[in-house]
Structures are given as structure tokens and as C-alpha cells.
């Protein structure tokens, strides 16, 4: 009882905190974007610094991985079109807006161009390129594939003994996911869903942390990635939903008949809102964090642009202090968002599979959290 109320408190705090961070980030986003649009034409000449462009460039996907300014690792571009078939070439061929094979990279998006050099919007092709985000995704997959089988080997090696090394580092987190997320949210049927929850938790955590590294991609702050995770959660919830889950949606217990025309659509919308909120929460939190840090660092360059070298040197310590502070918060958010995404997934699964007598409690708990989120 005690533990569950502590969990509830933590969760609510986390959700409030995360929404605050999100709101702040949106402000920054607007601030960053507005000058970018206004100054877009004004700063047509080269060498001028535009914070908005810089931030957007960093948080968006790209062909080629720019680790530092001017140092880009070329990545394979993989295109498929009906008329030309499969085409694979290095992204360096499209650097500096060069035209290669009739393709041109404009602001990170590849277009087919006509002979005259104009963008051909009619041409249909599919882009399966290893972009910066895909490369980061593969990197995180490799890290996880090295890490967790190593942990698993630790259990085989230290059978009947105390855990050691990497195994003892990750065991508390695995136990946390099992005992604090899966067990209380799903109940006795948790074992079936535990592998997914563990994969989800560590996937988000590893990519959140990777994203905090300088020059890294913003994978968990990409709407496509969070969309896939949310859709998988949605499919699992939908396909493991039992009779009580569907009955609750179609005919909520204890609701007067007159209210059913309102309640049933609300419940049906709720089914889709849950994964949607998961998708947007993770995307917004991580992207927001990146935008805040980049905006702060951008202040130094803005100062350089507006007041010269001395001003930028003068404000650097202050900006660095705030950036450091926000980085620490982002470190917290990296764990927090992995925890929240996994916990909410577990709770949605729990509401779908639990037996009827627990149903009311589960739905009530969930309702409060999704409103807060």
C-alpha cells in the first residue's frame, strides 16, 4: 500500500515535471523558430549564424552524420523507385547540394531533379537510407546486443554465486522493471510481457543517453521512432485485451444509459489517445531537452554575432553553467521518460488483461495519469 502510494507520487511528480520541461521547450522552440523565419531572408549571405537553423539541423534527421562542424561521416543512401530499381550510393555525393544521378539533397530531404535542375515533385521513390538516426539506431542495437547477452552470460557464469561486473550493474534496473513496473501494473500475468517491457525500457534509456552525447543523433526525440514504439504498445494492448477490457469500453459499468452515447465514444477515443500520448510525450520531452541545451549554447554564438568576441566570452561561463545544469536534468529525464513510457505501457497492458474485480482500480489510476501527461 505504502509503496504504491510512493509510486503514485513519483509518477505524478515525474509527469508534472516532464510537462513543465515540455512547455518550456515549446517556448524556446517558438523563440528559436521565429527569428529563424524572419532572419531567413536577411541572412542569405554566408557566415552569419542562425540559431533556429542550427537547432533544427541538430534535432532533425540527416543524410550523413555531422559529428562536428565540417566533419561529416558519409552514410549510405538507399533509394528504391519503380522505374530505376534499387540505388545505393554514399551521402557524400549529395553534399553541398550537388546533384547526383538526378537526386538532390535539400535540407536533409532527397528530391528527384529534372534535367534542368528543378525539383521534380511528380517522381515517386522510396528512401530507405541509413540516415543519421538509422545509424544511431543500429549503434544502440549493437550496444544492447553486446550488453545484455553479456549480462546473461554473467548469470550462467556466476550460477549459485553473487552477481559480478556488468551483471551487478544492470541487475537492479532489470529487477526494478520487473518488480516496480511489470508486477504491480500487470499483475500475475506479467511474465508474458516482461521481455517487451525490458526491451522497451532499455531501448529508450540507451537511446536517450546516446542522444545526450555531443554530436549524437536525436533518435528518441524523433516522432517516427516514438510512433513505432507507441504502435507496438497499442497492438499488444489491443490483441491481449480480454472480455472485460472490451466490455468496459463498449458498456462501462455504473454509467447511466443516458450517458452511454457520450461515454462510449470517449472510451473509444481513449483507446487511441493512450498510444498517441505515449508517442508525443517521449518525442516532445527528448526533443525539448535538445532544443533547450542547443538554445543555451546558441546564446554564445548569438552574442558573438551581435556584440563581438568579448561579449560571447563574458557570457560563456553563465551559459555553460546553465547548460551543465540542464544536461543533468536531461540525464534525469532520460531515465524518467524510459520509466514513464514503460510504466504506462505496462499499465495499459494491465488494464487490458486484468480480471474484472481489479478493473475499476486500474482504470481510475490510469485515468489520472493520462490526464496529467
Amino acid at each position, binding site marked *: 500500500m505504502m509503496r504504491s502510494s510512493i509510486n503514485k507520487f513519483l509518477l505524478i511528480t515525474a509527469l508534472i515535471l516532464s510537462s513543465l520541461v515540455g512547455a518550456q521547450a515549446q517556448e524556446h522552440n517558438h523563440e528559436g523558430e521565429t527569428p529563424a523565419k524572419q532572419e531567413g531572408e536577411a541572412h542569405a549571405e554566408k557566415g552569419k549564424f542562425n540559431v533556429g537553423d542550427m537547432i*533544427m539541423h541538430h*534535432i*532533425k*534527421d*540527416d543524410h550523413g552524420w555531422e559529428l562536428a562542424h565540417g566533419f561529416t561521416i558519409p552514410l549510405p543512401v*538507399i533509394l528504391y523507385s519503380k522505374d530505376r530499381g534499387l540505388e545505393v550510393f554514399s551521402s557524400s555525393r549529395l553534399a553541398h547540394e550537388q546533384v547526383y544521378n538526378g537526386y538532390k539533397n535539400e*535540407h*536533409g*530531404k532527397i528530391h528527384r531533379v529534372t534535367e534542368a535542375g528543378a525539383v521534380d515533385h511528380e517522381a515517386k521513390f*522510396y*528512401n*530507405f*537510407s*541509413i*540516415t543519421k*538516426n*538509422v545509424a544511431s*539506431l*543500429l549503434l544502440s*542495437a549493437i550496444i*544492447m*546486443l553486446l550488453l*545484455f*547477452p553479456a*549480462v*546473461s552470460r554473467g*548469470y*550462467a557464469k556466476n*550460477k*549459485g554465486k553473487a552477481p559480478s561486473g556488468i551483471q551487478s550493474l544492470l*541487475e537492479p534496473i*532489470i*529487477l526494478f522493471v*520487473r518488480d516496480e513496473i511489470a508486477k504491480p501494473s500487470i499483475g500475475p500475468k506479467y*511474465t508474458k510481457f*516482461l*521481455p*517487451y517491457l*525490458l*526491451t522497451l525500457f532499455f*531501448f529508450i534509456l540507451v537511446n536517450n543517453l546516446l542522444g545526450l552525447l555531443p554530436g549524437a543523433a536525436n533518435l528518441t526525440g*524523433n*516522432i*517516427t*521512432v516514438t*510512433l*513505432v*514504439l507507441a504502435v*507496438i504498445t497499442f497492438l499488444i494492448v489491443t490483441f491481449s485485451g480480454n472480455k472485460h477490457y472490451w466490455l468496459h469500453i463498449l458498456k462501462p459499468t455504473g454509467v447511466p444509459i443516458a450517458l452511454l452515447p457520450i461515454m462510449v465514444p470517449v472510451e473509444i477515443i481513449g483507446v487511441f489517445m493512450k498510444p498517441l500520448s505515449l508517442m508525443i510525450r517521449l518525442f516532445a520531452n527528448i*526533443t525539448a531537452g535538445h532544443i533547450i541545451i542547443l538554445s543555451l549554447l546558441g546564446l554564445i554564438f548569438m552574442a558573438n554575432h551581435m556584440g563581438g568576441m568579448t561579449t560571447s566570452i563574458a557570457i560563456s561561463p553563465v551559459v555553460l553553467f546553465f547548460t551543465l545544469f540542464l544536461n543533468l536534468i536531461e540525464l534525469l529525464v532520460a531515465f524518467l521518460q524510459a520509466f514513464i513510457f514503460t510504466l504506462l505501457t505496462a499499465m495499459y497492458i494491465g488494464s487490458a488483461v486484468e480480471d474484472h474485480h481489479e478493473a475499476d482500480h486500474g482504470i481510475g489510476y490510469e485515468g489520472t495519469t493520462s490526464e496529467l501527461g
Partner: protein
Amino acid sequence: MDLLTPDLGLLFWQVVVFLGLFLILRAFAWKPITESLNERENNIQSALDLAEKTRLEMTALKADNEKLLAQARSEREAILRGAKETADKMLADSRDKAESEGKRILEQARESMQNERQALVAQMKKEVVTLSLDIAEKVLRKELSDKSAQEKLVTDLVSNSRLN
């Protein structure tokens, strides 16, 4: 690649990589890890249960031992008491017996002494009679020769053969 529009290529890779990661990790990491964790937890639980059981058994054993010890002690006391009683009884018995035996022997001795004395007195009486008869005879014989001498003799004899 706008911020809010999903990208097909990344979507494809994300689905492939995430599902691949899930399947591989489920087979090679999560399953063995959770199994080992469960096994370890069961081991710890059974070890704790065993310890508790052993502790209870030990307490029961200790109680049994104490009971046994107390019983042995009381038995020993009973035996000792019994032995002492028997010894005391035997001593008392033998003392009684010796006393009565002594009494009996004393009585017997006294009786035989009495008998002896009576026999002696009877003997003596008989001898006195005989002696008196002898004396009387001798006196009578002396009287026959000398009267005064006879008398004197009788007196002497009588005084000499005085009975005590």
C-alpha cells in the same frame, strides 16, 4: 524530413531493428536472465525456509533434551532416595535384629546360669547332706570313744564346713 511528419525509411528501419532486437534479446538475454533471477530467488527462499525449519527443529530438540535431562535427573534422585531408604532400612533392620539376638543370647545365658546355679546349689545341698552325714557318723564314732573329744570334733567340723 520535418519534425512532426513520420519518415518512411526510418519507420522501416525502426520496426526492423526494434523487433529484431526484441526477438534476439528475448531469446538470449531476458529469458535466461529472468529464469536465473527466479531460480536464485527460489533458492534464497528455500534456504530461508530451511533455516527457519531447522531453527524450529533445534528448539524442539532442545526442549526434548531438557525434558529428557530433567527426567533423568528426577529418576536419579528417585533411585538415590530409594537406595538410601533401603540402606537405612537394612541398617535399622540389622540393628534391630542384632539387638534382639543379643537380648536373646543374654537371656539364654542368664537362663543357663540360673540353671547351673540351681544345679550347683542342689549339688551342694546334696554334698552338705552327705558331709553332714559323714560328720555325724564320725562324731558318732568319736563319741563312742571319747565323749568330750566327740563333741569337740563336731563343733570343729561344723565350723569348718560352713556353707557360704
